[in-house]
């Protein structure tokens, strides 16, 4: 007999969200297959690529390594919650301006990690950016443009707050 489905209550991108899931379903599976939030990507399903990165209670995690049932009461932020209603977040703008994506599979994960980095460290050095983003892999860009985009986004923030 299969394990019973559970009702899990969370806040996703600021909206209270209830879903049904089996204990064996990961948060990534529930986001994509149950809630139709397909922005988070599956690259490896073992914690190495970071394409599935979301913020769980404010911390970046690989959603492929989180069980959805663990998220009862949790606050989850996904790529779908990043842009304001009118336009794009400054990190998204910077990725476009700097051509920091090619196929785009890695991009949602990079943007979630970059958002977390800039929250903690508003003006990171290049080394700090590279180290913080080490859990996100990109097969296309060679990383330089991604690092530049995060630097640009950090600058944009300084201009806004200046």
């Amino acid at each position: 007999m299969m394990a019973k489905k559970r009702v899990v209550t969370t806040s996703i991108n600021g909206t209270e969200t209830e879903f049904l899931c089996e204990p064996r379903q990961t948060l990534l599976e529930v986001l994509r297959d149950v809630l139709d939030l397909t922005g988070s990507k599956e690259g490896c399903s073992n914690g190495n690529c970071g394409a599935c990165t979301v913020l769980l209670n404010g911390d970046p995690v690989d959603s492929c390594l989180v069980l959805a049932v663990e998220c009862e009461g949790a606050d989850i932020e996904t790529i779908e919650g990043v842009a304001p209603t009118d336009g794009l977040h400054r990190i998204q703008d910077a990725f476009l301006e700097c051509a920091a994506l090619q196929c785009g599979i890695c991009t949602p994960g990079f943007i979630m990690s970059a958002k977390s980095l800039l929250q903690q460290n508003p003006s990171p050095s290049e080394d700090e950016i590279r180290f913080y983003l080490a859990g996100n892999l990109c097969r296309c860009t060679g990383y330089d443009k991604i690092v530049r985009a995060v630097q640009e986004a950090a600058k944009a923030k300084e201009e806004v707050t200046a």
Partner: protein
Amino acid sequence: MRDFEYAAPASLDEAIELFTGKNGSAKALAGGTDLIDHVRTGRLSPDLIVDIKKISELNILENSSSGFRLGAAVSCNRIYRDETIVSEYSALADSCRIIGGVQIQSRASVGGNLCNSGPAADTTPALIALEATCVIAGPNGTREVAVEDFCTAPGQNVLQSGEILVELKFPPRQENSGSHYRRFIPRYEMDIAVVGVGASVVLDSDRETIVSARIGLGAVAPTPLFAESAGDLLAGMPANDDSIAQAALEAQAAAKPIDDMRGTKEFRVHVTRVLTERVLKAAVARAKGESVEVAIGH
């Protein structure tokens, strides 16, 4: 992934009850960064997963005159953000900062790293250096095991069916002491240690002589190793390069590595000596109150 039941008990007693009589078909879930992958790939096939993160004893992070207590489920990012750990149990913070990337560090626990019992686990040599004791609870009560005796073979440890690791206890930090952990990997980050070394030293009040030292080695034997004789050799010696070189040679002799894709036996033995020297020097510098520049990702 295979089908399993899930429980998230709020108390230690409830958790132990859930494990009792399950004979290995129930598995503890801390950060899940090893467990979820092992279930997905079929390496483990539990019928019940017990989330232990809601148990308060496993989340403790407490410094007092009797020492430091670290709950087994506390995540790496909580550990390296804790000022007491960073300044007084530095080797542990060093090891937590380099486990995986930030996504892994948000979830991975030191207890999970230890219970997974991999030979290259990064936090274990740091725990050995810092003289940690494992507090284990099970159906027959609580017992304590020195951390260097915890792992018994790759993926194996002293936990009996129904037992869980509750916390790690560290003795109070002594005056004029310092510690460091560092690993050798071919990349800057996101890799498994070819060799890992943790060391702690206590200096006397003039900070010239070593009173005692402990050295833990990773990835050079089937389990993390306590290079006891290498640390003991330093007791009473001047805190200089010569003494450190002798201890590093002794640590090298304790290393019994294998050849694998990450490095040959010969290379690992050599790196053990070089890394032990560097780590001891950093630990001595910290014991003298000097700040140690550790390149990001190392």
